Structures are given as structure tokens and as C-alpha cells.
């Protein structure tokens, strides 16, 4: 199983590897959710859902089910 945004813990950063799944809304891509960009998990609501992210300097919240479609690689810090 590849790592996705849904696996991030609060405060962790990662690089987006693939966001081409059919079910990712175009709007999310337009907000900068594209391969190569960084993503940071800033805050989570109870049950880890929704997730409040900083993607490529866009601040946005998405549901866990969408987050689980975006494949990432963690940045070792």
C-alpha cells in the first residue's frame, strides 16, 4: 500500500507523488495538489476527518476519503 495524505500525522510534511486518481476533484488540483508540491497536515478534526492541510501554500480542508487517494512520499526531518 503506497503512503497517502490520510496516513500523515499532525505536523508532518510530505511531497505529493501522484494525484491522478479519477475521484480527486479537479478543484483540488487547481488549488495546487499536484505532483512535486509539498503538503503539510496542520490540524485534524475528531476521527482524523476532515484534514486541514497546507498544500503548496493553499490552506484547505478535505475529507479523509479524498486524502486517501493522494499518494505521497514523506520528507525525512
Amino acid at each position: 500500500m503506497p503512503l497517502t495524505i490520510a496516513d500523515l500525522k499532525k505536523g508532518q510534511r510530505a511531497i505529493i507523488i501522484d494525484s491522478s486518481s479519477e475521484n480527486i476533484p479537479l478543484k483540488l488540483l487547481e488549488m495546487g495538489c499536484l505532483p512535486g508540491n509539498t503538503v503539510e497536515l496542520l490540524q485534524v478534526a475528531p476521527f482524523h476527518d476532515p484534514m486541514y492541510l497546507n498544500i503548496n501554500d493553499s490552506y484547505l480542508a478535505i475529507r479523509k476519503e479524498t486524502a486517501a487517494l493522494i499518494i505521497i512520499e514523506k520528507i525525512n526531518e
Partner: protein
Amino acid sequence: MSKQINVALIGNPNTGKTSVFNALTGLNQKVGNYPGITVEKKEGICKLSRGVKAHILDLPGTYSLNASSLDENVVIELLLNKNNKDFPDVALIISDVENLKRNLLLFTQIKDLKIPTILVINMADRMGRRGISLNIEMLEQELKTKVALVSTRKNEGIQELKTLIENYKNLSVEPCLDTSTIDSEYFSSLKKAFPNQDLYKLWVVISQDANFGKMDRNELDFSKFKTKTKSELKRLQQKETIKRYQFINGVLKEAQTIDETKATDLRTKFDKILTHKVWGYFIFFIILLTIFQVIYDWATVPMDFIDSSFALLADWIKMTFPEGGKFTNLIAEGVVAGIGGIVIFIPQIAFLFLFIAVLEESGYMSRVVFLMDRIMRRFGLSGKSVVPLISGTACAIPAIMATRNIENWKERLITILVTPFTTCSARLPVYLIIIALVIPEGRFIGLSYQALALMLLYLVGFGMAIFSAYILDKILKTNRKTFFVVEMPNYKIPMLKNVALTVLEKTKTFVFEAGKIILAISIVLWILASYGPGKDFKNADTIVEANHPELQGEQLENKIAAYKLEHSFIGIIGKTIEPAIKPLGYDWKIGIGIVTSFAAREVFVGTLATIYSVGSTLDDDDKTIKNRMAHEVHDNGSKVFTLASGISLLLFYAFAMQCMSTLAIVKRETNSWKWPMIQLFGMSFIAYIIALIAFQILN
């Protein structure tokens, strides 16, 4: 030169587009609707130098030219239609200095439509605080445009922007991206099939989701051209987005520097508390309590004032104009009472919109959406349903319009369907008078029974909304895809001008939209109560005199009036439905109230006031509606308003769908009569059954 320059304001949500609009137009603005849809159309006039004027159109906020909502679709339809009278001579792309990268995506798309475009970078006052510096000259050169650096908060840069608008003819219309580089093979075949069309426009039309719009897509002849499947198109859109970001990143690398060390991070500090798993909910709860306190406590002061003023006005009219004249009565009892019934809601509606505007402007509302989404989803709703449900406590009409930014159709539909269960301010007068009548005075741990009863009714309304959402979630099937993306904007201190204009605008819309209906009903009602068919109505005087020879003077007049009412058109309607509502504990007079309430609930009190004042048999010193209602008796001498019938009536009003304006809005928003009809019959059926059970148990 007399021609106006057509200017369109385009931009992402939360970029201060409305602030720029307000700064350019001041009070020279009006809000309407685009023909046939309920998307708000804001336009205004801006005076430039030498008598030249600009017509400014504030388009709905959008992230790109790919529409995912009705609001966004408006933008695309306008920009693709050169024949539209609002087609812009120049487009202003409003962007936020802190989100330049993302804002430029939309900019490059508009630019590629070959519309003269000015890039407006707003909130320039925040640059220092965020450690951002821009090389404007380089930006202008790379983006082939003119840049206006403005700060609406400090009122800087507006004059320079006006000068740029005036000289729009000097702007370059060279595109940013060569469309064919997205997929050379596909686009060259497209070019071959439609040699006379602009390639990028063609692509925008083709790539739109077919759910939206009746754009020129149909005018294009696709018979000679093999179209791509939906997922292939989406892949191309993705490719386009990546291409655009590559271009933008290249530009910004040169023209923008950000010194992270200088950035003060207000967002992190506030978010730590406001989106906290415990404190976040606690603060939201406190804010909700404050809103209710203000709406239902402070607002009563101006409301009482309005109430008494209108009573005085009605008296004054009766005294001043010819006595007993039909026209005088129509004005005093029909029109003035009707207008008073609308105006009285202004304080509550204004306060509510004030709160919502402040919460939206400050950026807090998105945090509420974030906090509530998971909880609301359990009931088939979305975090974004919170705003409509709160707004619904003032009025369902703006609340249902506020559902528009819920992307998921099923969640949006459920929100629309259940919002009318929340206790809107139109129910309040009905609740207040009936509670005063049937709930005894007394206190329970410091709270009066009457206040508790009112609170309970709010909870019942909200509970029913959640419960029916849960049921609807189980019943409704949908194959539309779920998605949920909420932007979390920066925290900002709300700008007074923006908040004030929003409150003014929304209140005005409510008063005129709802007002028209309420006023019309008041007049119709008065006519129905003042005329009747047949001999009973015509010869009321002689019949009553013959039957009650002992009565004289005022008592006789009152008896005649009561007899007339019973045989007026409205009396006949009430009598006709009496068998159906008798099991709920109501008589024909309440029946009239319920019938008229199907147009708008607040009409109930006014109706009873009309009926009882027309049919009163009491002395002069006992004239308040409450006293008259308290003295109402059935034919057998028992009281009409008892605890049982009162509670039955309260519950009926809590659940029944009695608002034509809401039905009309639901029809417009769902584009079919199916859903408003389900609301009308479903809610009214629930109301009838519950009221029936309540009365039968309590009686």
C-alpha cells in the same frame, strides 16, 4: 465619449473581490439576479476621469474556468459569449498577495481567452507582515499585463487602478499559454475540425461538465469530430493545470521573494484554539449562544418599538380618514397591518446577517465547516450545512440560497429539504402568543416555563431537521460523486464597509421579496373577510336584530360583525375545513389562520387579529389580541385555547411547511417542483399527525 467601459471583476473566493467592488463603486451598486437563476448579480457604476464611466460587474468567486457550481458557471457563460451585453471590455483579476500562485491560475486562463486583463493584487498592506516582496515590472512583463497593487483596507492604489481601467485599450491580449502544447495531437485535430474557432475557447467549451449550461457546445457540430471520454478529458484538464503551474512557478521564481523569517503567523496561533478538538467546539457553542441571545433578546427592543409604531399608525389612519369607509379600513386593517408584519422582522434579520457577515469575513466560518463536517455527515449533511441551518433560524429563504456552495448534490438537497424545520423568525410571533396563552407562569430553576417552552420548540425544530436528514440520507439514492474541498482563508478583521453593505443588501432583499407576498395576502385576506356570498352575509343586520332583540349599541354591532365574518368567504373556508382540524383541537377561526398561514406563517397572528377584531364581542378595554383569544369559547362554552389545543397548535406550526416563498426558492434551487411538493406534503403530514397525537393525549 458616452460609452461605458464594461468591467468584470473575477477572482478566487476570499481575495477581497467584494472589497475592491465596494471601493470602486461605493454606494452606486445594485444587486439582482441573473435571468432565470438565483445567482446574485452585483453591478455598479464607477466614475473615472473626464466624465467617463465604468460599469463594474462583480462576478461570483471562482477558482478556475472549470465550473463545478451554478455560480461558477455564470462566469464562464459570460466570458464565452461576446454578444452578452455585459461582456467585459476589460477583466480585473482580483488576487490576494498571499495566494498569488494559486490566483494566477485563473489569471492565465482568462488571459488565454484574449480578453484585456488587469491583474489586481489586493491586500498589499499585508506584504510586509508576510515578508513578501514583488518585482512588479517583471510581473507585468512576464504576464503581459498591467498590475495594480491595491489595499482596500487602507484605500491605497484605487486611483491608479481607475487610470488603468480607463486606458484598457493599451492592454496586450497575448495569451500566456499556447493551448496546443497541452496535447499537440488532440489539439491539432480539433483545429482541423473547427478551423474558424479559437482553440482555447473551444477547449473550455468541450471540457465543461455537461451538467452545466447550455453553452455554444450545442452549436458546434461534433459529427465530424471524435470526442474524448470524460476521463480522457479530465486527464487533459489535469495536464493543462500542471502546464499552467509550471508557467506560473517560472514567473514567480523571478518576480516574487518571500522571506519566511519575517512572516508573523497569526493563522497558526488562532487555529490552535479555534480548531481544537475541545476548545474549538466550546467556542463555537458560545458564539451560537451569543447569536441567539442577541436575536431573541436584544432584537425585541426595536421590535416592540416597531410594533407599537404600526399600531399607532393604524389608529391614526382610522381617525384621520373618513370613518367607516371601505378604503380606510383596507388601508388600516389590511395594508398597514401587512406592512407592519414584515417590518417587524427587520431587527432580527439584520442582526443575524450581521453575525453571519462578520463570521464569514473574518475567516471563522470555514473553521466551523471543518469542525462540524464529520458530525453532520452522519446525518447525510455536510459541514457546509451548518451555515444554512443557523441562517434558517432567521429565515429559510437566505438559508436555502446559502446551500449553493455545498458541492455534493445529495448533501445539498438534504440540507435544502430539512432547513425549513429550523425555527425561523416567522414562527416566533405564533409561538410567543400561544405560549403566553396556554403555558402557565412560574419558574423552574430560575427559568420561566414560558422561556423553557420556547427553547424546547427550537430544539424540537432542530432535532426534526437532523432526524429527517438522517432518514432522507437512507432513502435518497444518488450516483453523483462526493467531494468536499474547503478553503481555510487567513484570519482578517472584518471591514466595516463590507459588513454594513452586506447587512443592508440582504435585509433589503428579504423585506422586498417576502414583503410582496405578505402584503398581497394581507389584502386578499381582508377582502375575503369583508365580503361574502348569499343572503346571510348581505342581510346580517336584520338577521341578528331579529334573533337578538335584547342587544343594543356596540354589543349589537359586534354581534353583527361576528355573524358577517362567519358568513364571509373566509368564514366559509374555515367552516369547510373544520371537520379535518377538529381532532387537533382547533375551531374554524383557527382554521382560517392555518389556511392563510400556508402562504406565510406570520400571517397567523395578523389573521387572528383581523378575525377577532372584526368578530369581537368584548368591551373596549379588553382589546389586545391575547385577551380576545383567551376569551374565545366553543359553542358549548368550553375554552378554545387550552393546554392541549395550544400545544397541538405549537407543534403543528413547528413542523408544517407554511411558506410559499420557501417553496418558490426550493423550486428554483432544485429546478423541479418535485422537491418543494415533497416538502409541502411531507412536512404538513408530519405536522398533522404529531399535532393530532399531542392533542388526543393531552386532552
